[in-house]
């Protein structure tokens, strides 16, 4: 068991290192000379070669690439992500400010994904092959295909402009959380619904379920006692990776639509301005979150699945 954890963590660390190297290379290879840009900003259009060289030495850009990488990652671990090119403010400080807002959005969207997904899947699994099943499958398929930046304005149109139910812009307490969470969560909800539906269908064709039903076990009991524990590991894994792959990237778009001052919005501004410290910091943060989610998903699957637990105990791996 311990060996599995250690191995997973090891792989995660290696992936993190590789990803951080890629992030560093991305910015390193990017065209444009930050030293020249900053020198121009500081000394105006009359900046000379000496000014540029001075700025370059200040930023430490005259060192070799591995040195710069180590310096960057070292600072990052200590919580120093440099200063933004746009306004010179500490990136770490800005990030800390904005994390709260994005966290609210992500958690609400995850809730939406979970509830809607399970609901859709449950409706479908109730009578497999029936019209409800096909209808929910159609809804899920549409949910996967609808772009977030279409759903957002549609919801705004329906619930804000036509009938003032929810506030439209900005983060202002729970009522303002509803529309953005729905927009962000629907895509994941649809995917989650499809996956859970398939898992439940697989589980329901298992021998023990058929036997249980045929000897008269109640559908509810069978569901909770036989189906749920068997789909739990995979369902949890899918859910967590969905958060990483659909919810987090969608943050940028949803925060733009609803004007929430979160990390996605911050990232976008950094990208449009080519503010490298910001870009690097957000990417690094994102990669860490993704890797942690993946790790947790892997570990949960290992823990929840008795077969894995038993095989580990017996030493076979």
């Amino acid at each position, binding site marked *: 068991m311990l060996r599995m954890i250690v191995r*997973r963590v090891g*792989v*995660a660390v290696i*992936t993190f290192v*590789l*990803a951080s190297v*890629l*992030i560093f290379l*991305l*910015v390193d290879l*990017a*065209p444009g000379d930050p030293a020249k840009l900053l020198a121009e900003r500081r000394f105006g259009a009359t900046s000379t070669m000496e000014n540029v060289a001075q700025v370059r030495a200040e930023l430490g850009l005259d060192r070799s690439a591995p040195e710069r990488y180590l310096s960057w990652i070292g600072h990052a671990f200590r919580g120093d992500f440099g200063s933004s090119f746009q306004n010179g403010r500490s990136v770490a400080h800005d990030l800390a400010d904005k994390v709260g807002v994005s966290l609210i959005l992500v958690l609400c969207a995850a809730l939406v994904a979970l509830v809607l997904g399970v609901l859709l899947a449950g409706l479908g699994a109730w009578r497999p*092959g029936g019209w409800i099943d*096909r209808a929910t*499958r*159609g809804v899920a*398929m*549409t949910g*996967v*295909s*609808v*772009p*977030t*930046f*279409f759903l957002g*304005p*549609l919801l705004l*149109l329906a619930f804000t*402009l036509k009938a003032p139910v929810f506030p439209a812009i900005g983060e202002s307490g729970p009522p303002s959380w509803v529309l953005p969470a729905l927009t962000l969560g629907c895509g994941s909800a649809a*995917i*989650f619904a*499809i*996956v859970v539906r*398939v898992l439940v269908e697989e589980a329901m064709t298992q021998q023990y379920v058929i036997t249980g039903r045929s000897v008269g076990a109640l559908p509810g009991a069978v569901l909770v006692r036989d189906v749920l524990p068997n789909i739990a590991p*995979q369902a949890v*894994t*899918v859910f967590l*990776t969905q958060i*990483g*792959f*659909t919810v*987090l*990237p969608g943050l*940028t*778009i949803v925060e*733009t*639509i609803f004007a929430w001052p979160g990390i996605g919005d911050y990232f*976008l501004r*950094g*990208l*449009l301005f080519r503010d*490298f410290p910001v*870009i690097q910091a957000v*990417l690094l943060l*994102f*990669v860490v979150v*993704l*890797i942690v989610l*993946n790790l947790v998903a*892997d570990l949960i699957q290992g823990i929840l699945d008795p077969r894995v637990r038993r095989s580990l105990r017996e030493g076979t791996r």
Partner: protein
Amino acid sequence: MIRTVVTALRGLPRAAGIAVLVMVVVSLVAPLLAPYDPNAIDLGNAFGGPGAHHLLGTDQLGRDLLSRLLLASQTTITAVAAVIGCAIVVGGTIGVLAGAIGGIVDEIVMRVTDVFMSIPSMVIALAVIGAFGTGYLTMIIALTLGWWSAYARLSRSVVLSTKEQPHIEALKVLGASPVRIFGRHLVPAAIGPALVYAAGDAGLVALSVASLSFLGMGVKPPQSEWGQMLVDGTRYLESDAMLVILPGAALTLFVVTLNVFSRSIALRSSQGALPRATLARRLGRLPSLAPRAARVRVAPDRAKRMVSQ
């Protein structure tokens, strides 16, 4: 393979297949079909509703919406084709080489592929565009960088299983050069599954192109593209909702059709076996960080059940 596709599809999947074909054809001849120049500004006619002159109305600058939507479909389809084409070529080559050469090269390639696969394609594309600036070519390259890894893993697993086949052994014994084996046997074997996977990817790539344009990092005005029309239209949501509804509906329809079609293709593909990466993607799951992709067999009767809608 085409025969398999045509004979195996009935009902909804066949309708979707025809719809896809129609969409592709329409988008290719879009300039001929468009009644007006999509970039012709006519401020006097701005926000015009549907009518005799403009079937779908006009946008905030008086440009004919129908023409813009048609051109947008062409922009999107060309972009998607370019991205997927490049992703298959780049990813496929890397994957086949890794599988064929094996050893330390294979390990390195797999690690790099793993890292790329563990970061969402959109984020990779955003990062590349952020670092290298906006522009059509940059967008294509950025999206290719986001999508190549899946094809690398896919073609590698195909090659790994093909390598063991008796006919490859026989060719080696007969003295065929590695290049010949590579080009005439390994590469063609990888193309089929790659195309099946690409059909499923197409919808996501289209959404990503539109997303990038929405954020201002993809297709820029005055070129028409659905995402870009949406970001413009959102500004006028109160006055003229059609500017948002029409491109959004067009994009959704496009992606839904592609998705429905590709699901049926994938599940009924002639081999009947899906590499784990494909199955995981179909089911919306991320392949774990383990280095080797195993093959998962989907039994024919289950496949039929999953597809029968």
